[in-house]
Structures are given as C-alpha cells and as structure tokens.
C-alpha cells in the first residue's frame, strides 16, 4: 500500500504556494517573532506586509465576519495575483477578481447569496478564463485548513468520492485505507502565506476573542504562515486574561493587529452588526445592467476614492450603519 503525495509544490501556476513541505513550514514558523509584543498598526502598514502573488486565507464565511477592511486595503494598495482561499465566498471574491488583485480563488461556493442570485462577476471572469474558481467541497476546504493547522500534509475524508468535483482536482488523491481497505479521499494541507481574520475584540498582542460562529478561523489562523488580525476594538491584556476561555486565536500566531470599527461592512460581524442589506441591494443593483462596468464604478466610489476607512463608512451612510448595529446587537436580546 503506497500513499503517493507530491509535496512542496504550488497548486497553481501562480506564485503563491499553499501546501508546504514540513521543513519549510517549520522554518517559516521559527523565523517569526512569536514573543509577547505589541503588533498594532494601520491598514496601509498591514497591506504593505503582503507581496504580490502571496497566498491568502480569508476568514469568516459568505456574508459573515469577512475581513473586508483588509481586502479593501489590499485592493487599494494595487496588489496583483493573490491566490485566495475561503470556505465560502461572496462579494469580496467579486471585488478581488474585478480589481485585478486576484485571478485565483479556492473555495466551495462563490456567489452573493440566495437573495441576489448567481454572481455575474464570478460568471464573467470564470467563463472567459480570466480568473479561476477552484472548487472543493466545503468539508474539504475545512480539512485542508485543519491539516495545515495540524502540521500534517493531508487529511483523509469520505465525501467527494465518485463526483466530478473530485475529477477536477489533481491535488486530491483517492486511496485504499491501510487499516480497513475503504476508499478515502486525501486532501492536501492549505498553509497560506497570510490569513486575514476579523474578530470582535483582541488585545495589542493579538489574543483574539470571537463571538458567535467561528467558521474555519481557528484552523486558518494556525495554518497560515502569518496572521493579519482586524478587530472591532482593541482591549487590554488584563481584560483578555479575565476570560481566557473566550480567547480563540493565541497571540503567538498573530503578526499584525489593526483596529477597524465596522471592519466587515457591508457584511456582518456577529453581535455587532448584521449585513447592511440596503447597501448589498444597492451593490447588486449597480451590477445589474452591466456587471463589469457596475463593479468598476463601485470600486471607484467605495474603494479607490475614499480617503480612509471612515470615509468609506461615511459613503455607505450613517443610517445603514445604525440600523445594522441595532439588528446585530439584538441577537443578545430576549
């Protein structure tokens, strides 16, 4: 019984590698400063850490806890050829494609959401071959990040067998289990160069507390070679130490901390604000007549023209932010 796996090779033609050899993985971790130190910086400073062609794991899922401010900063900084990976992708994927920041998204599902139909930008870019939507099952995405977090090159799983999803994936393997003889699919680890994760609160060292749905973010944080954390607010280390059971990402995995209120807008941040539905409707409507022109105009107005993140929020509008915050906080009401 032989398990054949090619390691330390990029899963794509672009530069960012996502499955590393164990030596490389450990070397990159050892090279990081893992001491208890302050890591607070600006969005622009954090964007400058990420080179063109880097592989990026994006936290949250669909319209939830999307690190949108960091995606916004990378697009404004003119990043190209980022290889992006996320469990489920939504408008942030459209904006990454349309801005030219990424031509390769590894994910299980990519559209806006059931209310708005199939993504016209996803269709326009993938059907013409201008960008790649590499499709894995949702569990496969999760186990790829988990393998990465465990320092293992792969994990076995039981779905995707017999499907065409599997036949499109040269990086997955089918084996006969050495113990039971059953067929299993092996999915390779994802160890992205950077994880972008948004949380409700963390301290200046990067001890991050997450409320509500954690999605794949704990695994993603440990799988990545560097973690850029955006947070609704920075709290003291004393406050973190009062409830260490609430800390989901340890400081030693974190490389940058940026305080960004409403950092997921127009997506939601659990307990803080729900999706900004009116703005998402406005976005979807802007893309209706001509998706590509519509998203270019949207990028200009909301991504390139604003002087700051606060200016971006100002353009979205106070009424929307207040309403989303009211709905968001209501999750804790009886």
């Amino acid at each position: 019984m032989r398990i054949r796996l090619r390691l330390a090779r990029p899963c794509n033609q672009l530069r960012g590698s996502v499955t590393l050899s164990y030596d490389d993985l450990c070397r990159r971790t050892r090279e990081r400063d893992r001491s208890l130190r302050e890591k607070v910086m600006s969005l622009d400073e954090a964007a400058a850490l990420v080179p063109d062609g880097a592989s990026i794991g994006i936290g949250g899922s669909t319209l939830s806890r999307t690190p949108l401010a960091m995606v916004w900063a990378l697009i404004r900084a003119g990043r190209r050829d980022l290889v992006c990976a996320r469990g489920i992708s939504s408008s942030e994927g459209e904006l990454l494609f349309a801005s030219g920041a990424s031509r390769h998204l590894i994910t299980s599902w990519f559209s806006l959401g059931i209310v708005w139909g199939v993504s016209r930008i996803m269709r326009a870019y993938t059907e013409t071959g201008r960008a790649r939507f590499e499709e894995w099952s949702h569990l496969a995405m999760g186990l790829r990040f988990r393998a990465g977090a465990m320092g293992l090159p792969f994990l076995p799983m039981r779905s995707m067998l017999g499907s065409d999803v599997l036949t499109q994936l040269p990086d997955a393997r089918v084996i006969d289990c050495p113990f039971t003889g059953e067929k299993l699919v092996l999915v390779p680890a994802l160890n992205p160069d950077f994880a972008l994760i948004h949380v409700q609160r963390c301290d200046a060292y990067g001890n991050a507390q997450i409320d509500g749905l954690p999605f794949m973010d704990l695994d993603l944080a440990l799988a990545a070679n560097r973690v850029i954390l955006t947070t609704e607010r920075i709290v003291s280390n004393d406050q973190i130490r009062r409830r260490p059971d609430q800390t989901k990402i340890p400081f030693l995995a974190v490389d940058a901390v940026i305080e960004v209120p409403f950092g997921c807008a127009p997506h939601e941040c659990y307990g803080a604000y729900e999706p900004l539905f009116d703005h998402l409707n406005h976005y979807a409507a802007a893309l209706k007549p001509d998706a590509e022109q519509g998203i270019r105009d949207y990028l200009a107005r909301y991504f390139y023209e604003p002087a700051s993140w606060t200016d971006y929020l100002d353009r979205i509008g106070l009424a929307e932010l207040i309403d989303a915050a009211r709905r968001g906080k209501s999750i804790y009401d009886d």
Partner: protein
Amino acid sequence: MMTDSARYTASELLAVMSARLLQDGQVVFAGVGIPLLAASLAQRLHAPGLTILFEGGTIGAYVEPGQLPPSTNEQRCTRRANMVLGSTDVLLLLQRGYVDVGFMGGAQIDQYGNLNSSYIGLPERPTTRLPGTGGGNDIASLTQMIVAMKHEKRRFVERVDFVTSPGFLAGGNSRREVGLSAGGMFRVVTDLGLLGFDESSKRMTVLALHPGVTAAEVQANTGFELLVLSDLPVTDPPSNDELAMLRHLDPDHLYTA
C-alpha cells in the same frame, strides 16, 4: 405551474410537501432557501423535536419568523440554537453518522439523482458557471437526501453535465462501488409530485402526484423516462394551517417568491 394558484404558489407547495417528509426526532442538515423554510415549518407543526443543523455551524436551529437568513452562515441562524461550532466540525457530524437526512435545493438533477450546481456545459469552457457545491457534495455523499426543486425539463435531464453532489451515480450498485457506503437519494419533491428511486436500478420513480397533476404531465416536464408506481396516490393539498405558518415564517416571500 399546475397548482391551485389562487391558494398557494409553486414554491409554497414545494415547502409544504417537503416539510411533511421530515419526522419528529430526526436530525436534518438543511441548506438555505426552501429546505431551511420547510424544516422550520415541520418544526413548528408536526415535528417539534426536529433538530436542524446548518453548515455555517449551528446545531438545533430555531429560526425566528420574518428573520430568515441570506445564507446558513449568519447570526440569524443561531438565535435560540443549542450550540454554535466551527463549520468543519458541523460538517464532520455528517461523516460521523449523526445526521438522519440532508435536505437541499437543486439546479439540475438526472435519472439517478445526481445533482449539478457547478457547470452547464464543459468545465473547461462552461456556458454557465454555477456557484458550486458548498456543503452539497458533503451532505449528498454522507447521508440520505431530500431534494426540493421546480419540475422543469431543463432541470430534469438524463445525465447531468457535471456531478457536483452524488446521487446513485450510474445506478445499480455504482454509488457503493466508488466507496460511498452511507446515504443516497431518498426523495425528490417537486411542484408536480413526489419522486423516489427504484430499489435495484436506482432510477427515478414517481411515487405520488400533487392535486390536479397527471402522470403524463410529470413525464412531459422530465427529460428522461420516469418509472411510475401503479395506482399513484395523490397528495393532500396544503392545508390552511400549513400555509398560514409558512407565511408567518416567510412574510416577505424571501424564499417563496
């Protein structure tokens, strides 16, 4: 379509008919849209002990009327739930065998219950790139499936362009032979009737018709030859109670347009 349009829409018929398939005490893994709505409807009517799981990471959902989520990943999914957990971990409950039934919508289905939500045309040069599997492949691979979808010829095809979520693959034992030893397609609920799969050939079979629908109409809206039970029963039309609760849950017709 062939519904008593004065009383209910095709989507409402789908939601009611599929809700009736869920039993009290079951654990159901539901996708967004009609599945989420139908599971919530069952929970409010005949199956108060139904446990609803969402792939965003929710165990024991109890969705609030009029507060339906835009996907199964938002905080609305978690209100009054028993537990939130990581999306990988909730999907692993399928693999571990805790789930009785998976429940989702479908864009395209074939005679063996294979679902396509990835590509119309060839993957290398598709005429339409669809949103992809999400957790669909995992649910269909690991548990018994109920699919709710509109009954149209272009959606019911002899062979799907791409198997995103496996049904019985090429029929017979082929699903088991590729290593999928658990689950399989159980029911397909449409706005025309209720369908299942033949025990040995695994071909799609008409099990019941909705009121006012004939077997010939079902066949005429299907792109392959259906097996048909002799003495086809007719389903009871949606009751006033079912429709009232459905509209209470989705007053804005977010999922039942």
